[in-house]
């Protein structure tokens, strides 16, 4: 398929290509596009139309998921900015200055998890959120006015680490619930 599949995700939703986005505008544009292409809108049509609808709806959802989450959005912007392949960023490698900090985080989560301490995990999740917010502000600077993509790549890597930690905390909390 031609035109729309070559649009970048920001253009697909009619949004400016930048890290800080208007989430309400993104949601509205997503709904408007899905209202056209969602397979439910074409359920009574022949196979060829239904196939095209599924492909388009899939693409629109992928674009939305990428822009909706700050981490995926940052990775995507780095990719667009030229050559920093998000796949190659790795949550386990990090600049040495943050190594110690990450070690501490990992130990804290591991200990609290082993103690089955739900409140402790909730506390950690809260602290993690505060640090994540700070990093996002920094990232918006680097990807925005400063256009310092190398620094942004490092920051994104730190964000990936925090994101992974967040998922570990969630899994641990879910395990305690059950």
């Amino acid at each position: 398929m031609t035109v729309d599949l070559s649009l970048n995700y920001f253009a697909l939703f009619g949004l400016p290509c930048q890290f800080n986005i208007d989430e309400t505008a993104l949601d509205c544009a997503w709904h408007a596009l899905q209202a056209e292409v969602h397979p439910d809108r074409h359920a009574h049509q022949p196979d060829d139309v239904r196939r095209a609808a599924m492909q388009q709806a899939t693409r629109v959802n992928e674009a939305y998921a990428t822009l909706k989450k700050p981490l995926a959005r940052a990775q995507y912007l780095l990719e667009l900015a030229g050559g920093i392949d998000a796949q190659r960023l790795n949550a386990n490698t990090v600049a040495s200055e943050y190594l110690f900090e990450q070690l501490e985080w990992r130990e804290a989560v591991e200990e609290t998890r082993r103690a089955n301490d739900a409140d402790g995990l909730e506390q950690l999740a809260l602290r993690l959120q505060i640090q994540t917010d700070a990093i996002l502000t920094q990232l918006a600077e680097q990807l925005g006015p400063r256009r310092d993509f190398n620094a942004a790549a490092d920051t994104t890597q730190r964000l990936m680490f925090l994101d992974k930690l967040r998922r570990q905390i969630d899994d641990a909390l879910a395990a305690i619930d059950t």
Partner: protein
Amino acid sequence: MALLQIAEPDAPTAAPPKHRLAVGIDLGTTHSLVATVKNGIAVCLTDEQGRALMPSVVHYRSDNGIDVGFDAQNARVTDPRNTIVSVKRFMGRGTKDVPHIEAMPYVFEETPGMLRLRTVQGSKSPVEISADLLRALHTRAEAHFGSELTDAVITVPAYFDDAQRQATRDAARLAGLNVLRLLNEPTAAAVAYGLDNAAEGVYAVFDLGGGTFDLSILKLTHGVFEVLATNGDTALGGDDFDHRLYCWALDNAHISPPSDEDARRLQMAVRAAKELLTLSEEAPLRLRLASGEEIDLPLNRADFFDMTRPLVQKTLAPVKRTLRDAGLAPADIKGVVMVGGASRMPHVQRAVAEFFGQEPLTNLDPDKVVALGAAIQANVLAGNRQTDEQWLLLDVIPLSLGLETMGGLSEKIIPRNTTLPVARAQEFTTFKDGQTAMSFHVVQGERELVSDCRSLARFELRGIPPMAAGAARVRVTFQVDADGLLSVSAREANTGKETGIHVKPSYGLTDNEIADMLRAGIESANADLAARALREQQVEAERLLEAYAQALATDGDLLNGHERAAIDALVTRLRQAAAQQDPSAIADSIAALSRATEDFAARRMNRSVRAALAGHNIDELQHLQP
């Protein structure tokens, strides 16, 4: 030169689309229902006695007859082994997956994939038994309409995995239904509730049915029903409350292993007692066993609540997980919609009220709301509504999809709660020189170990061009459609060569098995196979011609003269074929026409995307900022 559209006398004209018959079916663990939209209002279709609910019971008689629903109820006691209840709990499941299987009066067969039941009419798959339930509802609907019906929306628990969904769709195919959509039960309920109450905001749907539990959180905005997260337990429902009561009764009445017949009597008695306790404080358990012995056990509400409290607690774990996945707190929820017969139990309602800090919404019939929502959606999917009065359902995949990697670990490819449809591509390479095949194992579930997840399929890629180790790049795409069903395709990236995929489903039936069952079913019903095939093809041809005529009327300008002439020739060919009696000739013409219009369809879709974009340019979107 611009092309003028001149309608030939026999050319397709864009007549207003006909009203198509379509139903919504709630295929429940204890009861099933069929509903449709009549004069703009969703109604449940009733049997001759005016009953909407059909017990989900099938009796296979020794004289080869099959009774379904109320007609099969009495046989539950007299012929328990051949009278199947709660078959939904067996869909896409092996014997090890089913709780309390030891208390069931059936003869199970452990076959690879799904379990089977040995009956007087031979070995039956849960798919075939469910198809018998669906056939009864299909017949009920056709009697109402006085004409043939094929299109249906079938509801499934939101937390059903791929194997359970596939099994449900197979059952519908066996029952001669064209499945417009598999719709998640809580989503169907939200549609019925949301449209009825013009609801906006974030709602939770708490759906405790006979055998399954779902909790979905949805955001309702201007006609969009967006599922934010879902969780549940496909082996938790009213049946488990019955079982708890049943075990208590066995202990207290000092009955040690009961006969199948007595077990069934007792099961029916405890269910009646449970239902009575929703209305009254006391429900003594009284019944007479086959031996003539009388049982009379005092039972009150407090006793029942005490013994089933752990089950109520069990519903709260998925509730918490859903909220966490949606990034919400209980106070963010505007209303909690209660669905499913078991949600009537007062201690369930109290637990929900305490957790969310508000009284749950119980102003709709928890038994019917799912079928009504499905009917409303079926009506839309059949194309019976104008585009501007449609709404949009954005649902999610309930359980993560993963691939087995080294060490028996699951690597997540598509995480749970991703909006559907979704596709993810992953690249793999060969580790030996000249390697031409690779094998994969797809699993579903949240656990790290593959052995703790559900195995969906093992497949092999063959025909990879021989290259040095690590040189071949095979791109495997996992596509999950709006029904939550997975399909896999693969391509070698260097050569672009489509690699052959051989999928062996771990659970569920192969297409050949379905074809065999269909054939057997049709033959035993003594139906005229050829006439049926011809009719189906003719209907399909009519559908395609109508759709194409409509497409031409709105977007005919997207085709140039050559393209239009080529397609028109195929239209003529199809119209001629449809007038003849050869189903395979019609099928060929249908295939030729839809291949030829594929590109046209893609262009039209692009046009509508552009139109949608044009309606939301950046300036306008910025006005929407809060």
